[in-house]
């Protein structure tokens, strides 16, 4: 409980809304550039690296709630996945993986694969296999056409997009940590 509390300093509490705004803002830029990515967890990963697992988990959950309330209601179903992404980022940072670009990239890919495995059942069983987004749904449809069942098709779609998405996310966070002044790199 103490470790939990020690993470939530005033600086952390100030950081979290900024991190959530980063999640939403970068996601918007990605849509403007019409890239086939989400990039909606940069803030979450940042909190994981700058603070620790609990605050990163919370950032993920709050992000999802905000996106759910104002942009896309179904997002809330993936709250658990968002929290886990934050957790994993903190664990990788603790293990020193965010210090070199290739380890950060690997951390991203691993996180992406885990996210894909966790997201697929949610899409398949809660939403009947679709998310209402044309690009990803088309991908799911083609997997179904190839003969995969509901879960398999969602898994297929996830394995294709999530690792790349998280790879880029972790690389961006690595780049940011390079440019950040020392005094802000408080690690719990």
């Amino acid at each position, binding site marked *: 409980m103490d470790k939990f509390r020690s993470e939530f300093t*005033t600086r952390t509490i100030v950081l979290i*809304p900024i991190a959530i705004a980063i999640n939403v803002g970068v996601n918007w830029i990605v849509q403007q550039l019409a890239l086939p990515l989400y990039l909606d967890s940069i803030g979450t990963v940042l909190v994981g690296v700058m603070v620790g697992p609990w605050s990163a988990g919370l950032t993920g959950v709050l992000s999802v709630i905000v996106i759910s309330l104002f942009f896309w209601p179904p997002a809330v179903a993936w709250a658990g996945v968002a929290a886990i992404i934050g957790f994993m980022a903190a664990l990788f940072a603790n293990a020193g993986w965010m210090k070199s670009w290739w380890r950060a990239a690997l951390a991203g890919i691993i996180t992406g694969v885990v996210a894909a495995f966790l997201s697929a059942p949610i899409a398949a069983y809660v939403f009947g296999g679709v998310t209402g987004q044309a690009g990803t749904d088309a991908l799911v449809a083609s997997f179904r056409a190839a003969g995969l069942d509901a879960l398999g098709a969602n898994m297929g779609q996830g394995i294709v997009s999530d690792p790349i998405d998280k790879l880029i996310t972790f690389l961006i966070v690595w780049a940011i940590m390079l440019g950040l002044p*020392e*005094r802000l790199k408080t690690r719990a």
Partner: protein
Amino acid sequence: MTKTIAHLTDFSFSYAGSGTKAIQEINLAIKEGELIGVIGPSGAGKSTLGYALSGFIPHFFTGDLSGNQQLFGQETSQTPLSELAGRTGMVVQNPFNQISGARYTVREEVAFGLENLGTDRKLMDKRVNETLERFKLASLRDRSPYELSGGQQQRLALASILAMEPDLLILDEPTSQLDPAGAEEVFESVHTLTETSSTTVVLISHKLEWLAEVADRILVLVAGRIRGQGPPREILTQPDLEPWGIGSTQYTRAARLASSAADTSQPALPVTLDQAVGFFKPWI
């Protein structure tokens, strides 16, 4: 005998991860009700001094310190920020960063600090209304803080802290990011503050005319050390401020020019408008 609000004895501090001392061997005692002006070139450690006086060092900023720090009669290191809550506060440069974001209207924003202190609702309502009136924010009470101009936001930041009636207030270059109109609004608010309350104030600023007007004492900080302190008229007319990049007030400059042109011996040079009037009067 007036109370000493904050006291630094042989105090030095370097930020964590930095080898150099940001401030060194500071000996300073601030009495209740004083308004101390702090001037110096950038990087001199003025903000650091502000943090050390108000308790943000060591509780918010970590590093190596030596010497003694006292605030409200107690060892600063023994008094956590949560205990200092409501008694000490700081206004910083950027007006936008001081909007908490946790409240939708100006009125509620002013109440935010009082709510955190657990103030009774009736008293809070009264204080909020008084504060809004005092700092001319009453007409903006139902607006969103984000809709305000820079000067208005800075006034709001000031008002929000003063609603809690703190004992010590640090103003760290409060007008440096404002346009002249906004800066003027803040000057007025600080005047109001000095006239209507006994809050002790430390004002860090480059605006010498302003400091000359309101400060009881001025401190000159260069490379982390105090190079001089005294009444405005004494400090601001010294010739050796130039090499440190500190200018002089327009009144002093005018008086110097006039004196050298008239080739007369100089009585005390003025630093404020009133003093300038007095200085030039014999010549008219």
